[in-house]
């Protein structure tokens, strides 16, 4: 039963009851997503200059063609895929481009939207490549150790390059800034899923019992903890706390899902708390972030003016319920990183709580669709991979959105699809591509089962 789908070929007679493939829904939603993005683009131009921006048609056409190509790839190679995933990706990416274009108008000397458009094209291309080339997600299981090796190399690379804004997470090649840690996320998720799928029985049932806690054997746990420690160590060296937190969360989630040991969750939280306190105490960079979170207006009281977090909160507050309207806010007051880490503040100010909630719910849907694929799949690797990829999105959104709205201490991270940053966009398209493949497998296996 667990290997259903591997032995069946496409030559089966047409079954009596087929699941709807829902590609039409996907296409309709993509059109809506593209139209919404073009509308946003025009709204910015109208608000700022009183005219529809000259590139509106080109922007709409470009986004439309990209989305259409992606749709065709899905229609041909993953016809059973979840119809919500691609439109959500298109809408978030389109909205991100609108927000970056909008902020570009405030910084005429520093235009980020054209580069971001190039990266988005690359991202969608990569999406198509993954959907077309990766016919079965289980292939990835074979490359688990290649993935982890590649992830470690990618994570280590930036150490060799100079630090940018206090963090060593970028490498510069031919004028492009690349953040290799972004790609490492997906690779690590693949590795964790493959490794835990292979060893989950050993992890769950072997080992000594200490009080009420069932410990796994050192032999099984050793490698995975070692790799986790290594990646976290590298991240602390690179001073990128956000990604470090993300890896940790991913690790704990997958370990819990694989073994079902609540103990892991407890141990994970305990370790996280200890780690957070230790890093918060010892690392001045992180320590100041915690202080900013506790007292966002301390710098104002001290007469130094508002810091970035305070400016971000002002922006969200200015948005209120319905927002000022695109192009009419002043989130550029945040200054540095307004287009990347703080992009959500622009959404919050100009689209209001209504728009912000819509964005959160879009992310929520994306994650939910990932989990749904995980639930529907049969093979443990596929299940863990789907949960892992969805969790990456969920955790990343929580860490950065919680950070800029003052819910948790701020850690630098890219808002998936929205924020300026090429590596992030490409990675997120890769995540959506993998989720498309996984959801396709999940429904295809069911369909074939019904047919048989």
């Amino acid at each position, binding site marked *: 039963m*667990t290997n259903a789908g591997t032995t069946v070929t496409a030559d089966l007679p047409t079954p009596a009851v087929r699941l709807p493939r829902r590609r039409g829904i996907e296409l309709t939603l993509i059109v809506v997503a593209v139209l919404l993005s073009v509308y946003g683009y025009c709204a910015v131009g109208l608000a700022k200059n009183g005219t529809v921006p000259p590139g509106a048609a080109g922007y709409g056409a470009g986004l439309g063609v990209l989305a259409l190509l992606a749709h065709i790839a899905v229609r041909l190679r993953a016809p059973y895929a979840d119809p919500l995933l691609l439109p959500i990706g298109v809408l978030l990416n389109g909205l991100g481009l609108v927000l970056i274009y909008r902020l570009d108008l405030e910084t005429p000397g520093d235009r980020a939207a054209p580069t971001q458009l190039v990266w988005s094209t690359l991202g969608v291309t990569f999406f198509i490549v993954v959907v077309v080339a990766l016919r079965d997600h289980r292939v990835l299981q074979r490359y688990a150790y290649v993935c982890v090796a590649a992830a470690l190399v990618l994570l280590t690379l930036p150490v060799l390059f100079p630090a940018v804004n206090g963090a060593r997470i970028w490498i510069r090649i031919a004028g492009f800034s690349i953040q290799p840690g972004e790609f490492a996320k997906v690779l690590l998720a693949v590795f964790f899923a493959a490794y835990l799928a292979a060893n989950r029985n050993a992890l769950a049932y072997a080992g000594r019992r200490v009080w009420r806690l069932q410990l796994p054997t050192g032999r099984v746990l050793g490698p995975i903890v070692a790799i986790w420690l290594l990646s976290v160590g590298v991240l602390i060296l690179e001073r990128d706390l956000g990604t470090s937190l993300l890896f940790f969360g991913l690790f704990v*989630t997958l370990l*819990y*899902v*694989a073994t*079902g040991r609540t103990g892991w969750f407890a141990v994970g939280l305990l370790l996280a708390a200890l780690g957070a306190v230790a890093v918060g105490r010892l690392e001045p960079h992180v320590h100041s972030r915690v202080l900013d979170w506790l007292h966002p*207006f301390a710098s*104002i009281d001290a007469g130094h*003016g*508002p810091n970035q977090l*305070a400016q971000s*909160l*002002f922006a*969200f*507050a*200015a*948005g*209120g*319920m319905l927002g*000022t*309207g695109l192009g009419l806010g*002043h989130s550029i*007051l945040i200054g540095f990183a307004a287009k990347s880490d703080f992009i959500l503040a622009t959404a*919050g100010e100009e689209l*209001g*709580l209504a728009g*912000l*909630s819509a964005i*959160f*719910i879009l*992310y*929520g849907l994306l*994650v*939910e669709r990932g*989990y749904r694929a*995980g*639930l529907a799949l*049969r093979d*443990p690797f596929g*299940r863990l991979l789907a*949960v892992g990829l*969805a*969790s990456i999105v*969920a*955790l990343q*959104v*929580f860490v950065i*959105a*919680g950070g800029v*709205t*003052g*819910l948790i201490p701020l850690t630098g991270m890219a808002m998936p699809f929205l924020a300026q940053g090429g590596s992030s966009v490409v990675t997120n398209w890769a995540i959506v591509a993998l989720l498309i493949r996984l959801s396709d497998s999940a429904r295809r296996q069911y369909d074939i089962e019904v047919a048989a």
Partner: protein
Amino acid sequence: MTDSMTRHIRLAAAFCTLLLLALLVNATRVQVFQSRTYDDNIANRRQTIARYDQPRGAILVGGKPVTGSRDSGEQLRYERTYRNGPLYAPVTGFASQEYGTTLLEHSEDGILSGTDSMLAPFPLWNDLTRAQNPGGNVVTTLNPAAQQAAYAGLGTRTGAVAAIEPSTGRILALVSTPSYDPGSLSGNGRSANRSWARLNADPDKPMLNRAVRQTYPPGSTFKVVTAAAALDAGVVTDLDAATNSPDPYTLPGTSTTLTNEGDGCVDAPLRSAFEWSCNTVFAKLGVDVGVRDMSGTAEAFGFNDAYVKIPFSVSPSTFDTTLDKAQLALSSIGQYNTRATPLQMAMVAAAVANGGQVREPYLVERTTRRGGETVSTAGSRPVRQAMHPATAVQMKELMEDVVTEGTGTNAAIPGATVGGKTGTAQHGIGNSGTPYAWFVSWAQGERDIEPKVAVAVVVEDASADRSDISGGGDAAPIAKAVMEAVLGS
């Protein structure tokens, strides 16, 4: 096995839902519940940006704007400009992006900046639409000719002029010299910083509005109040009856003696004592009236009122109410603790001209929307009776005599009835400072049914030669020019 994993996935999904809920709740907290607090934080530039995002409303004098707005193209977009800045600075004040607002720019800021809720077409309209009203206009009561005449009359000297319409309290002129260009403070750049530093360091204090924010010893001009109190109290009943006044006069309870500049003050009747400004007569009159009636009359004229607003606040003029007789004698001739703003002394002259009634002075005729629809008008102002109407008639007579044959002949205007009173106020330790030259007056044109203007002029550095300083010589010609300007317009 598979089932247990399904359960774990569901639990993990539930955890993700919790995270989503936390984000939504927190966003609601920041954007709805705490939004007002954050909006009002002093470090939040948004309100400032919105404030300067549209041209500021205009201040109008004689139907023409004396202010404007300039698009600077910066984050704080519009900067204030002034036509004839120094002339109207004591009225407009400044509106600076860096240093805030003063005077009319300050007290009418809601109208001018467009934030006043009265400017909205419908109640709550702007809260719903997030629209901002264009700045409204402020129409002043000033008479441009009178303002110009006062400013030109003071010239390079330090001093102030206040002119009001006696029957209404409308302020017709409000001038203070030396003045400054408020436009130099409008922006937020280095030039505004330099101007601010320079103006504040200037020993002549060009930003001080001497007409309403500086009090001076009124000297002999205060004898108008003393005379009115004496007539009201019945201490003097006949203007031409001899008073029992020695010269020199020894201040009660002391060995200090008070003298006069000229002769003929012994037992002088009120008319000639007023005409020739006999210190001895009025010092004794004040003592005869007593502290209670003297302060009663002074307060009825507006002294000791700390809450005068025109609509910006006016420094209170003072008449000490806890005096011994010697102090009262000095206070009654406008010395000791008696201090008055030029506006207050204009009110004294206006009360005489207006049958004893004091009208509260005001500077804003009405405020309008940008399109001209009236938002608010000055309306009728409270009235206070400072002296009996009969006393006012006698006082008018006394003041007219000063101009026709006394110390104030320089203020006479052919074809008009003019009443006045000169003053030369000693000040400084041991009266060592250059005396202030004062003149207060009112004028009624031939065809007017009532006096049209009351003026007070003070000149601080009247003349280089100390002995030449006099209200009649230095201040009266300025008052005359202002009165002529009003009567002629």
